[in-house]
Protein backbone atom coordinates (compact mmCIF):
# COMPACT_ATOMS: atom_id res chain seq x y z
CA UNK A 1 0.00 0.00 0.00
CA UNK A 2 1.24 3.46 -0.89
CA UNK A 3 -0.08 6.30 1.24
CA UNK A 4 0.51 9.76 -0.10
CA UNK A 5 -0.23 12.15 2.71
CA UNK A 6 -0.68 15.87 2.03
CA UNK A 7 2.31 16.07 -0.29
CA UNK A 8 3.47 19.38 -1.78
CA UNK A 9 6.33 20.17 -4.11
CA UNK A 10 7.32 23.72 -4.94
CA UNK A 11 10.21 24.91 -7.11
CA UNK A 12 11.27 28.43 -6.15
CA UNK A 13 7.75 29.53 -5.33
CA UNK A 14 5.99 27.68 -8.16
CA UNK A 15 3.80 24.96 -6.70
CA UNK A 16 3.94 21.88 -8.91
CA UNK A 17 2.14 19.45 -6.65
CA UNK A 18 -0.34 21.03 -4.26
CA UNK A 19 -1.40 19.21 -1.07
CA UNK A 20 -2.17 15.89 -2.70
CA UNK A 21 -3.35 12.95 -0.60
CA UNK A 22 -4.26 9.55 -1.94
CA UNK A 23 -3.97 5.93 -0.96
CA UNK A 24 -3.07 3.29 -3.52
CA UNK A 25 -4.27 -0.18 -2.63
CA UNK A 26 -1.83 -3.08 -2.87
CA UNK A 27 -1.96 -5.21 -6.04
CA UNK A 28 -3.95 -2.57 -7.93
CA UNK A 29 -3.21 -0.37 -10.90
CA UNK A 30 -3.45 3.34 -10.20
CA UNK A 31 -3.28 5.61 -13.23
CA UNK A 32 -2.42 9.27 -12.74
CA UNK A 33 -3.80 11.21 -15.66
CA UNK A 34 -3.51 14.88 -16.52
CA UNK A 35 -2.27 17.34 -19.10
CA UNK A 36 1.40 18.25 -19.33
CA UNK A 37 2.38 20.48 -16.45
CA UNK A 38 -0.30 19.02 -14.20
CA UNK A 39 2.31 17.68 -11.78
CA UNK A 40 1.47 14.02 -12.45
CA UNK A 41 5.04 12.98 -13.22
CA UNK A 42 6.42 14.95 -10.27
CA UNK A 43 3.94 13.22 -7.98
CA UNK A 44 5.02 9.80 -9.22
CA UNK A 45 8.72 10.62 -8.98
CA UNK A 46 8.30 11.48 -5.32
CA UNK A 47 7.35 7.86 -4.63
CA UNK A 48 10.88 6.66 -5.45
CA UNK A 49 12.52 9.87 -4.22
CA UNK A 50 13.70 11.08 -7.60
CA UNK A 51 12.02 14.26 -6.39
CA UNK A 52 12.10 15.30 -2.73
CA UNK A 53 8.77 16.70 -1.49
CA UNK A 54 8.68 20.19 -0.02
CA UNK A 55 6.23 19.01 2.63
CA UNK A 56 4.11 15.98 3.41
CA UNK A 57 4.84 12.29 3.76
CA UNK A 58 4.75 9.17 1.63
CA UNK A 59 4.46 5.80 3.34
CA UNK A 60 4.96 2.43 1.71
CA UNK A 61 3.38 -0.41 3.69
CA UNK A 62 3.31 1.91 6.67
CA UNK A 63 6.98 2.94 6.53
CA UNK A 64 7.82 6.58 5.82
CA UNK A 65 10.13 6.62 2.78
CA UNK A 66 12.01 9.57 4.27
CA UNK A 67 13.64 6.98 6.56
CA UNK A 68 14.92 4.82 3.68
CA UNK A 69 18.09 5.75 1.73
CA UNK A 70 17.09 6.75 -1.82
CA UNK A 71 19.18 4.11 -3.64
CA UNK A 72 17.85 1.34 -1.39
CA UNK A 73 14.25 2.43 -1.91
CA UNK A 74 14.69 2.61 -5.68
CA UNK A 75 16.06 -0.93 -5.86
CA UNK A 76 12.79 -2.09 -4.27
CA UNK A 77 10.63 -0.15 -6.74
CA UNK A 78 10.49 -0.92 -10.46
CA UNK A 79 10.86 2.12 -12.70
CA UNK A 80 9.97 2.19 -16.40
CA UNK A 81 9.93 5.37 -18.44
CA UNK A 82 8.99 6.75 -21.82
CA UNK A 83 11.76 6.18 -24.33
CA UNK A 84 12.67 3.09 -22.25
CA UNK A 85 15.97 4.55 -20.89
CA UNK A 86 17.91 1.38 -21.61
CA UNK A 87 21.68 1.64 -21.16
CA UNK A 88 22.83 1.76 -24.79
CA UNK A 89 26.29 0.31 -24.11
CA UNK A 90 25.04 -2.78 -22.29
CA UNK A 91 23.34 -5.81 -23.77
CA UNK A 92 19.68 -6.62 -23.26
CA UNK A 93 20.67 -9.26 -20.71
CA UNK A 94 22.92 -6.87 -18.79
CA UNK A 95 20.20 -4.23 -18.82
CA UNK A 96 17.62 -6.58 -17.35
CA UNK A 97 20.18 -7.81 -14.79
CA UNK A 98 20.88 -4.27 -13.53
CA UNK A 99 18.95 -4.32 -10.26
CA UNK A 100 19.65 -7.97 -9.35
CA UNK A 101 23.34 -7.14 -9.79
CA UNK A 102 23.05 -4.05 -7.60
CA UNK A 103 21.37 -6.22 -4.99
CA UNK A 104 24.23 -8.73 -5.19
CA UNK A 105 22.34 -11.75 -6.49
CA UNK A 106 24.59 -14.60 -7.56
CA UNK A 107 25.30 -15.15 -11.27
CA UNK A 108 23.13 -18.22 -11.72
CA UNK A 109 20.07 -16.72 -10.06
CA UNK A 110 20.46 -13.49 -12.06
CA UNK A 111 20.87 -15.31 -15.37
CA UNK A 112 17.83 -17.51 -14.69
CA UNK A 113 15.76 -14.48 -13.80
CA UNK A 114 16.84 -12.62 -16.95
CA UNK A 115 15.84 -15.56 -19.14
CA UNK A 116 12.54 -15.96 -17.31
CA UNK A 117 11.62 -12.31 -17.81
CA UNK A 118 12.68 -12.19 -21.45
CA UNK A 119 10.55 -15.26 -22.16
CA UNK A 120 7.66 -13.67 -20.29
CA UNK A 121 7.87 -10.69 -22.65
CA UNK A 122 8.04 -12.98 -25.70
CA UNK A 123 11.69 -12.26 -26.36
CA UNK A 124 13.62 -15.46 -26.97
CA UNK A 125 16.51 -15.28 -24.45
CA UNK A 126 18.98 -17.05 -26.74
CA UNK A 127 18.27 -14.57 -29.50
CA UNK A 128 17.98 -11.34 -27.53
CA UNK A 129 20.19 -11.77 -24.44
CA UNK A 130 23.38 -10.59 -26.11
CA UNK A 131 21.92 -7.95 -28.41
CA UNK A 132 22.42 -4.25 -27.84
CA UNK A 133 19.34 -2.06 -27.29
CA UNK A 134 19.76 -0.10 -30.52
CA UNK A 135 19.43 -3.33 -32.50
CA UNK A 136 15.85 -3.79 -31.24
CA UNK A 137 12.56 -2.35 -32.48
CA UNK A 138 10.73 0.28 -30.42
CA UNK A 139 8.25 -2.23 -29.05
CA UNK A 140 11.00 -4.67 -28.09
CA UNK A 141 13.01 -1.92 -26.37
CA UNK A 142 9.93 -0.95 -24.38
CA UNK A 143 9.41 -4.56 -23.28
CA UNK A 144 13.04 -4.84 -22.19
CA UNK A 145 12.56 -1.61 -20.25
CA UNK A 146 9.63 -3.09 -18.31
CA UNK A 147 11.49 -6.40 -17.88
CA UNK A 148 14.39 -4.48 -16.33
CA UNK A 149 11.99 -2.68 -13.99
CA UNK A 150 10.53 -6.02 -12.84
CA UNK A 151 13.84 -7.91 -12.63
CA UNK A 152 14.18 -7.98 -8.86
CA UNK A 153 10.50 -8.74 -8.33
CA UNK A 154 9.50 -5.39 -6.86
CA UNK A 155 6.15 -4.94 -5.09
CA UNK A 156 5.70 -1.59 -6.76
CA UNK A 157 6.17 -0.62 -10.40
CA UNK A 158 6.25 3.03 -11.43
CA UNK A 159 5.65 3.76 -15.12
CA UNK A 160 6.03 7.21 -16.66
CA UNK A 161 4.19 7.41 -19.99
CA UNK A 162 5.61 3.99 -20.85
CA UNK A 163 3.72 3.65 -24.13
CA UNK A 164 4.06 7.24 -25.33
CA UNK A 165 6.50 6.40 -28.10
CA UNK A 166 4.73 3.30 -29.44
CA UNK A 167 2.39 3.03 -32.40
CA UNK A 168 -1.26 2.13 -31.59
CA UNK A 169 -1.02 -1.57 -32.49
CA UNK A 170 2.08 -2.21 -30.41
CA UNK A 171 0.70 -0.04 -27.62
CA UNK A 172 -2.48 -2.14 -27.34
CA UNK A 173 -0.34 -5.28 -27.15
CA UNK A 174 1.94 -3.74 -24.51
CA UNK A 175 -1.09 -2.76 -22.42
CA UNK A 176 -2.44 -6.32 -22.54
CA UNK A 177 1.00 -7.60 -21.50
CA UNK A 178 1.02 -5.22 -18.57
CA UNK A 179 -2.41 -6.33 -17.39
CA UNK A 180 -1.53 -10.02 -17.53
CA UNK A 181 1.84 -9.52 -15.84
CA UNK A 182 0.28 -7.38 -13.14
CA UNK A 183 -2.23 -10.15 -12.47
CA UNK A 184 0.52 -12.78 -12.46
CA UNK A 185 2.85 -11.01 -10.02
CA UNK A 186 0.29 -8.96 -8.08
CA UNK A 187 2.47 -5.87 -8.47
CA UNK A 188 1.13 -2.50 -7.40
CA UNK A 189 1.40 -0.33 -10.50
CA UNK A 190 1.43 3.45 -10.58
CA UNK A 191 1.24 4.64 -14.17
CA UNK A 192 1.36 8.21 -15.45
CA UNK A 193 -0.29 9.10 -18.74
CA UNK A 194 -2.03 11.97 -20.52
CA UNK A 195 -4.29 9.54 -22.36
CA UNK A 196 -7.68 9.07 -20.69
CA UNK A 197 -8.45 6.10 -22.93
CA UNK A 198 -5.34 4.35 -21.58
CA UNK A 199 -6.25 5.34 -18.03
CA UNK A 200 -9.75 3.88 -18.30
CA UNK A 201 -8.46 0.74 -19.95
CA UNK A 202 -5.70 0.02 -17.42
CA UNK A 203 -6.69 1.67 -14.17
CA UNK A 204 -8.39 0.06 -11.20
CA UNK A 205 -8.49 3.61 -9.95
CA UNK A 206 -7.76 6.86 -11.74
CA UNK A 207 -6.30 10.00 -10.23
CA UNK A 208 -7.01 13.09 -12.32
CA UNK A 209 -4.61 15.98 -11.80
CA UNK A 210 -4.62 19.54 -13.03
CA UNK A 211 -2.31 22.43 -12.09
CA UNK A 212 -0.80 20.44 -9.24
CA UNK A 213 -4.12 19.59 -7.61
CA UNK A 214 -5.79 16.21 -7.37
CA UNK A 215 -9.25 16.77 -8.84
CA UNK A 216 -10.68 13.30 -8.48
CA UNK A 217 -9.50 9.89 -7.36
CA UNK A 218 -12.01 7.19 -8.14
CA UNK A 219 -12.84 4.05 -10.10
CA UNK A 220 -13.16 4.54 -13.88
CA UNK A 221 -16.98 4.00 -13.80
CA UNK A 222 -17.29 6.69 -11.19
CA UNK A 223 -15.10 9.14 -13.09
CA UNK A 224 -17.08 8.63 -16.29
CA UNK A 225 -20.50 8.81 -14.60
CA UNK A 226 -19.79 11.56 -12.12
CA UNK A 227 -16.81 13.70 -13.11
CA UNK A 228 -15.91 15.92 -10.16
CA UNK A 229 -15.21 19.04 -12.21
CA UNK A 230 -15.85 20.29 -15.75
CA UNK A 231 -12.16 19.71 -16.44
CA UNK A 232 -12.46 16.00 -15.64
CA UNK A 233 -15.52 15.80 -17.89
CA UNK A 234 -13.59 17.50 -20.66
CA UNK A 235 -10.70 15.07 -20.26
CA UNK A 236 -13.08 12.13 -20.66
CA UNK A 237 -14.74 13.76 -23.67
CA UNK A 238 -18.50 14.24 -23.40
CA UNK A 239 -19.30 12.47 -26.65
CA UNK A 240 -17.12 9.53 -25.65
CA UNK A 241 -18.74 8.83 -22.29
CA UNK A 242 -21.20 6.03 -23.23
CA UNK A 243 -18.53 4.19 -25.21
CA UNK A 244 -15.94 4.52 -22.47
CA UNK A 245 -18.47 3.10 -20.04
CA UNK A 246 -19.13 0.15 -22.33
CA UNK A 247 -15.41 -0.45 -22.76
CA UNK A 248 -15.11 -1.22 -19.04
CA UNK A 249 -17.28 -4.36 -19.08
CA UNK A 250 -16.95 -7.69 -20.85
CA UNK A 251 -19.55 -9.42 -22.99
CA UNK A 252 -19.23 -12.40 -20.65
CA UNK A 253 -20.98 -10.49 -17.85
CA UNK A 254 -24.02 -9.52 -19.90
CA UNK A 255 -24.99 -12.65 -21.80
CA UNK A 256 -28.71 -13.17 -22.28
CA UNK A 257 -30.50 -16.39 -23.10
CA UNK A 258 -31.65 -16.83 -26.68
CA UNK A 259 -30.35 -17.88 -30.03
CA UNK A 260 -29.56 -15.77 -33.07
CA UNK A 261 -27.70 -16.56 -36.24
CA UNK A 262 -24.76 -14.87 -37.84
CA UNK A 263 -21.10 -14.32 -36.98
CA UNK A 264 -20.59 -14.75 -33.19
CA UNK A 265 -18.55 -12.53 -30.86
CA UNK A 266 -16.14 -13.86 -28.20
CA UNK A 267 -17.28 -13.66 -24.58
CA UNK A 268 -13.92 -12.05 -23.67
CA UNK A 269 -14.55 -9.04 -25.94
CA UNK A 270 -15.50 -5.72 -24.38
CA UNK A 271 -19.07 -4.44 -24.61
CA UNK A 272 -17.76 -1.59 -26.70
CA UNK A 273 -16.47 -4.01 -29.33
CA UNK A 274 -19.81 -5.85 -29.25
CA UNK A 275 -21.70 -2.57 -29.64
CA UNK A 276 -19.55 -1.54 -32.58
CA UNK A 277 -20.10 -4.92 -34.23
CA UNK A 278 -23.88 -4.69 -33.71
CA UNK A 279 -24.02 -1.26 -35.29
CA UNK A 280 -21.68 -2.15 -38.11
CA UNK A 281 -23.42 -5.36 -39.11
CA UNK A 282 -26.89 -3.81 -38.60
CA UNK A 283 -28.09 -6.67 -36.39
CA UNK A 284 -30.19 -6.34 -33.22
CA UNK A 285 -28.36 -9.21 -31.46
CA UNK A 286 -25.10 -11.19 -31.69
CA UNK A 287 -24.50 -14.80 -30.67
CA UNK A 288 -21.83 -15.09 -27.98
CA UNK A 289 -19.15 -17.75 -28.23
CA UNK A 290 -17.11 -19.06 -25.36
CA UNK A 291 -14.52 -21.81 -25.83
CA UNK A 292 -15.85 -22.50 -29.30
CA UNK A 293 -19.50 -23.02 -28.43
CA UNK A 294 -22.42 -20.57 -28.52
CA UNK A 295 -23.56 -19.72 -24.98
CA UNK A 296 -26.21 -17.07 -25.59
CA UNK A 297 -26.65 -13.65 -27.11
CA UNK A 298 -25.88 -10.00 -26.51
CA UNK A 299 -28.46 -7.46 -27.64
CA UNK A 300 -28.41 -3.91 -28.87
CA UNK A 301 -31.26 -2.99 -26.54
CA UNK A 302 -29.38 -4.22 -23.49
CA UNK A 303 -26.18 -2.45 -24.47
CA UNK A 304 -28.05 0.81 -25.01
CA UNK A 305 -29.32 0.57 -21.45
CA UNK A 306 -25.84 -0.19 -20.12
CA UNK A 307 -24.38 2.77 -21.97
CA UNK A 308 -26.73 5.20 -20.25
CA UNK A 309 -25.46 7.31 -17.38
CA UNK A 310 -25.52 5.21 -14.18
CA UNK A 311 -27.70 6.64 -11.41
Amino acid at each position, binding site marked *: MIEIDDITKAYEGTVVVDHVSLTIEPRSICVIVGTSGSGKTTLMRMINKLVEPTSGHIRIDGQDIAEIPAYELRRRIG*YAIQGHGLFPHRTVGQNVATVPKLLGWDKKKTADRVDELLSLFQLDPAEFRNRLPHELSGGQQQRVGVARALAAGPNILLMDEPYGALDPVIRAKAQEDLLSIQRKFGTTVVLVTHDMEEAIHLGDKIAVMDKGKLLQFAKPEEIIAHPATPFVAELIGTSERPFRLLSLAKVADHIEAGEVGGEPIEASASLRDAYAELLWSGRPALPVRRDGSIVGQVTLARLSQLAARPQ
Partner: protein
Amino acid sequence: MKIGNLIRLVIFGLLLVFLIQPELFAGFFGLFTKNNQPAIYNQGSLLDITLNHLGIVAAATLASTIIAVGLAIVVTRPFGAEFLPLSRSLANIGQTFPPVAVLALAVPMLGFGTAPTLVALFLYGLLPIFENTLTGLTNLPPAVTDAAKGVGMSGWQRLIKVELPLALPVILAGVRLSVVISLATATIGSTVAARTLGEVIIAGLLSSNTAFVLQGGLIVGVLAVLIYDALSALERFLMKRTGQLGRA
Protein backbone atom coordinates in the same frame (compact mmCIF):
# COMPACT_ATOMS: atom_id res chain seq x y z
CA MET B 1 37.19 3.07 -46.96
CA LYS B 2 39.21 0.02 -47.97
CA ILE B 3 41.44 2.04 -50.28
CA GLY B 4 41.94 4.57 -47.48
CA ASN B 5 43.13 1.84 -45.13
CA LEU B 6 45.43 0.43 -47.80
CA ILE B 7 47.04 3.84 -48.30
CA ARG B 8 47.46 4.22 -44.51
CA LEU B 9 49.08 0.81 -44.33
CA VAL B 10 51.50 1.62 -47.14
CA ILE B 11 52.44 4.95 -45.55
CA PHE B 12 52.96 3.28 -42.17
CA GLY B 13 55.17 0.67 -43.84
CA LEU B 14 57.23 3.33 -45.59
CA LEU B 15 57.66 5.20 -42.31
CA LEU B 16 58.87 2.04 -40.54
CA VAL B 17 61.36 1.23 -43.30
CA PHE B 18 62.61 4.81 -43.29
CA LEU B 19 63.12 4.81 -39.53
CA ILE B 20 64.98 1.50 -39.53
CA GLN B 21 66.94 1.85 -42.78
CA PRO B 22 67.06 5.58 -43.59
CA GLU B 23 69.96 5.07 -46.05
CA LEU B 24 67.53 3.43 -48.47
CA PHE B 25 65.99 6.86 -49.00
CA ALA B 26 69.31 8.71 -49.36
CA GLY B 27 68.75 9.07 -53.11
CA PHE B 28 65.40 10.79 -52.61
CA PHE B 29 66.56 13.18 -49.89
CA GLY B 30 69.79 13.83 -51.79
CA LEU B 31 67.66 15.85 -54.21
CA PHE B 32 67.25 18.51 -51.51
CA THR B 33 70.91 18.88 -50.50
CA LYS B 34 73.56 21.27 -51.74
CA ASN B 35 77.37 21.18 -51.67
CA ASN B 36 77.64 17.51 -50.73
CA GLN B 37 75.71 17.90 -47.49
CA PRO B 38 74.65 14.61 -45.89
CA ALA B 39 71.22 13.50 -47.17
CA ILE B 40 70.23 11.61 -44.02
CA TYR B 41 70.35 12.98 -40.47
CA ASN B 42 73.65 11.79 -39.05
CA GLN B 43 73.75 12.98 -35.44
CA GLY B 44 71.73 10.15 -33.97
CA SER B 45 69.38 7.33 -34.86
CA LEU B 46 66.10 8.59 -36.35
CA LEU B 47 64.31 5.63 -34.81
CA ASP B 48 65.53 6.50 -31.30
CA ILE B 49 64.60 10.15 -31.71
CA THR B 50 61.14 9.26 -33.01
CA LEU B 51 60.48 6.83 -30.16
CA ASN B 52 61.62 9.45 -27.67
CA HIS B 53 59.36 12.03 -29.31
CA LEU B 54 56.40 9.65 -29.09
CA GLY B 55 57.31 8.81 -25.50
CA ILE B 56 57.26 12.46 -24.44
CA VAL B 57 53.92 13.04 -26.17
CA ALA B 58 52.44 9.88 -24.65
CA ALA B 59 53.59 10.76 -21.13
CA ALA B 60 52.33 14.34 -21.38
CA THR B 61 48.96 13.26 -22.85
CA LEU B 62 48.51 10.57 -20.24
CA ALA B 63 49.09 13.11 -17.48
CA SER B 64 46.75 15.66 -19.12
CA THR B 65 44.08 12.99 -19.56
CA ILE B 66 44.20 11.88 -15.94
CA ILE B 67 44.08 15.44 -14.60
CA ALA B 68 41.56 16.81 -17.12
CA VAL B 69 39.14 13.88 -16.86
CA GLY B 70 39.47 13.86 -13.09
CA LEU B 71 38.80 17.58 -12.93
CA ALA B 72 35.82 17.33 -15.27
CA ILE B 73 34.37 14.52 -13.13
CA VAL B 74 34.77 16.58 -9.96
CA VAL B 75 33.12 19.71 -11.37
CA THR B 76 30.16 17.76 -12.78
CA ARG B 77 29.38 16.21 -9.37
CA PRO B 78 27.00 18.16 -7.13
CA PHE B 79 29.73 18.93 -4.56
CA GLY B 80 32.14 20.28 -7.19
CA ALA B 81 29.74 22.32 -9.29
CA GLU B 82 30.90 25.63 -7.84
CA PHE B 83 34.44 24.99 -9.08
CA LEU B 84 33.27 24.70 -12.69
CA PRO B 85 34.00 28.34 -13.72
CA LEU B 86 37.37 28.32 -11.93
CA SER B 87 38.54 25.08 -13.51
CA ARG B 88 37.37 26.26 -16.92
CA SER B 89 39.45 29.42 -16.72
CA LEU B 90 42.48 27.47 -15.45
CA ALA B 91 42.34 25.13 -18.43
CA ASN B 92 41.84 28.12 -20.73
CA ILE B 93 44.93 29.82 -19.36
CA GLY B 94 46.90 26.65 -20.02
CA GLN B 95 45.79 26.86 -23.63
CA THR B 96 46.38 30.57 -24.20
CA PHE B 97 49.98 30.47 -22.90
CA PRO B 98 52.25 30.03 -25.93
CA PRO B 99 54.24 26.82 -25.47
CA VAL B 100 57.45 28.72 -26.09
CA ALA B 101 56.65 30.96 -23.15
CA VAL B 102 56.00 27.92 -20.96
CA LEU B 103 59.39 26.54 -21.98
CA ALA B 104 61.10 29.84 -21.23
CA LEU B 105 59.46 30.00 -17.81
CA ALA B 106 60.02 26.34 -16.99
CA VAL B 107 63.71 26.13 -17.86
CA PRO B 108 64.95 28.21 -14.90
CA MET B 109 62.98 25.96 -12.56
CA LEU B 110 63.41 22.57 -14.17
CA GLY B 111 66.62 23.01 -16.11
CA PHE B 112 67.24 22.05 -19.73
CA GLY B 113 66.03 18.73 -21.14
CA THR B 114 62.80 16.80 -21.25
CA ALA B 115 61.14 18.13 -18.08
CA PRO B 116 60.14 21.64 -19.30
CA THR B 117 58.83 20.16 -22.57
CA LEU B 118 56.67 17.72 -20.64
CA VAL B 119 55.25 20.55 -18.55
CA ALA B 120 54.45 22.64 -21.64
CA LEU B 121 52.76 19.74 -23.44
CA PHE B 122 50.87 18.74 -20.31
CA LEU B 123 49.44 22.25 -19.85
CA TYR B 124 48.68 22.51 -23.54
CA GLY B 125 46.85 19.19 -23.65
CA LEU B 126 44.54 19.90 -20.70
CA LEU B 127 41.92 22.09 -22.33
CA PRO B 128 40.67 19.93 -25.22
CA ILE B 129 40.35 16.89 -22.98
CA PHE B 130 38.73 18.85 -20.16
CA GLU B 131 36.20 20.57 -22.44
CA ASN B 132 35.31 17.33 -24.22
CA THR B 133 34.89 15.40 -20.98
CA LEU B 134 32.59 18.15 -19.71
CA THR B 135 30.56 17.98 -22.92
CA GLY B 136 30.43 14.21 -22.77
CA LEU B 137 29.34 14.07 -19.13
CA THR B 138 26.74 16.83 -19.38
CA ASN B 139 25.12 15.83 -22.69
CA LEU B 140 24.07 12.30 -21.84
CA PRO B 141 20.60 11.15 -22.99
CA PRO B 142 18.26 12.29 -20.17
CA ALA B 143 16.19 9.09 -20.24
CA VAL B 144 19.34 7.03 -19.61
CA THR B 145 20.59 9.11 -16.67
CA ASP B 146 17.08 9.16 -15.24
CA ALA B 147 16.87 5.38 -15.53
CA ALA B 148 20.29 4.99 -13.90
CA LYS B 149 19.02 6.94 -10.90
CA GLY B 150 15.66 5.20 -10.94
CA VAL B 151 17.08 1.68 -10.74
CA GLY B 152 18.95 2.67 -7.59
CA MET B 153 22.56 3.20 -8.65
CA SER B 154 24.64 5.31 -6.29
CA GLY B 155 26.39 8.39 -7.66
CA TRP B 156 29.64 6.48 -8.01
CA GLN B 157 27.98 3.53 -9.76
CA ARG B 158 26.24 5.87 -12.20
CA LEU B 159 29.58 7.49 -13.04
CA ILE B 160 31.49 4.25 -13.58
CA LYS B 161 28.79 2.10 -15.14
CA VAL B 162 26.82 4.59 -17.21
CA GLU B 163 28.18 8.11 -17.52
CA LEU B 164 31.85 7.46 -18.31
CA PRO B 165 31.24 4.60 -20.78
CA LEU B 166 28.72 6.73 -22.67
CA ALA B 167 30.96 9.81 -22.63
CA LEU B 168 34.03 7.81 -23.68
CA PRO B 169 33.84 8.51 -27.43
CA VAL B 170 33.61 12.26 -26.79
CA ILE B 171 36.46 12.14 -24.25
CA LEU B 172 38.51 10.22 -26.78
CA ALA B 173 37.92 12.96 -29.35
CA GLY B 174 39.49 15.39 -26.87
CA VAL B 175 42.47 13.09 -26.36
CA ARG B 176 42.88 12.87 -30.12
CA LEU B 177 43.00 16.66 -30.50
CA SER B 178 45.43 16.89 -27.62
CA VAL B 179 47.76 14.21 -29.05
CA VAL B 180 47.93 15.84 -32.45
CA ILE B 181 48.65 19.28 -31.00
CA SER B 182 51.34 17.77 -28.75
CA LEU B 183 52.98 15.85 -31.58
CA ALA B 184 53.59 19.10 -33.42
CA THR B 185 54.34 21.22 -30.36
CA ALA B 186 56.89 18.72 -29.01
CA THR B 187 59.30 19.71 -31.80
CA ILE B 188 59.98 23.06 -30.17
CA GLY B 189 61.09 21.12 -27.07
CA SER B 190 64.38 20.63 -28.87
CA THR B 191 65.15 24.32 -28.34
CA VAL B 192 65.63 23.45 -24.67
CA ALA B 193 67.49 20.23 -25.41
CA ALA B 194 64.66 17.73 -25.24
CA ARG B 195 65.34 14.82 -27.56
CA THR B 196 62.51 15.18 -30.06
CA LEU B 197 62.21 15.31 -33.84
CA GLY B 198 62.59 19.09 -33.54
CA GLU B 199 66.31 18.31 -33.22
CA VAL B 200 66.39 17.11 -36.83
CA ILE B 201 64.50 20.14 -38.08
CA ILE B 202 66.68 22.57 -36.12
CA ALA B 203 69.85 20.89 -37.34
CA GLY B 204 68.56 21.31 -40.89
CA LEU B 205 67.74 24.96 -40.36
CA LEU B 206 71.15 25.72 -38.81
CA SER B 207 73.09 24.11 -41.67
CA SER B 208 70.61 25.16 -44.40
CA ASN B 209 70.02 21.49 -45.13
CA THR B 210 66.51 21.18 -46.54
CA ALA B 211 66.74 17.38 -46.47
CA PHE B 212 66.97 17.35 -42.65
CA VAL B 213 64.07 19.79 -42.25
CA LEU B 214 62.02 17.66 -44.60
CA GLN B 215 62.83 14.44 -42.74
CA GLY B 216 61.88 15.80 -39.34
CA GLY B 217 58.74 17.46 -40.66
CA LEU B 218 57.59 14.44 -42.64
CA ILE B 219 57.98 12.03 -39.75
CA VAL B 220 55.98 14.30 -37.40
CA GLY B 221 53.32 14.90 -40.06
CA VAL B 222 52.87 11.24 -40.98
CA LEU B 223 52.73 10.22 -37.31
CA ALA B 224 50.09 12.87 -36.62
CA VAL B 225 47.89 11.77 -39.52
CA LEU B 226 48.16 8.07 -38.68
CA ILE B 227 47.47 8.52 -34.96
CA TYR B 228 44.58 10.89 -35.72
CA ASP B 229 43.00 8.34 -38.05
CA ALA B 230 43.51 5.44 -35.67
CA LEU B 231 41.86 7.30 -32.78
CA SER B 232 39.00 8.45 -35.05
CA ALA B 233 38.37 4.84 -36.03
CA LEU B 234 38.33 3.81 -32.37
CA GLU B 235 35.80 6.57 -31.62
CA ARG B 236 33.54 5.49 -34.45
CA PHE B 237 33.70 1.91 -33.22
CA LEU B 238 32.71 2.96 -29.70
CA MET B 239 29.90 5.20 -30.96
CA LYS B 240 28.55 2.40 -33.09
CA ARG B 241 28.74 -0.10 -30.29
CA THR B 242 26.69 2.11 -28.01
CA GLY B 243 24.21 3.01 -30.73
CA GLN B 244 25.19 6.66 -30.50
CA LEU B 245 26.38 7.11 -34.05
CA GLY B 246 24.90 10.35 -35.23
CA ARG B 247 24.29 11.63 -31.70
CA ALA B 248 27.14 13.91 -30.69
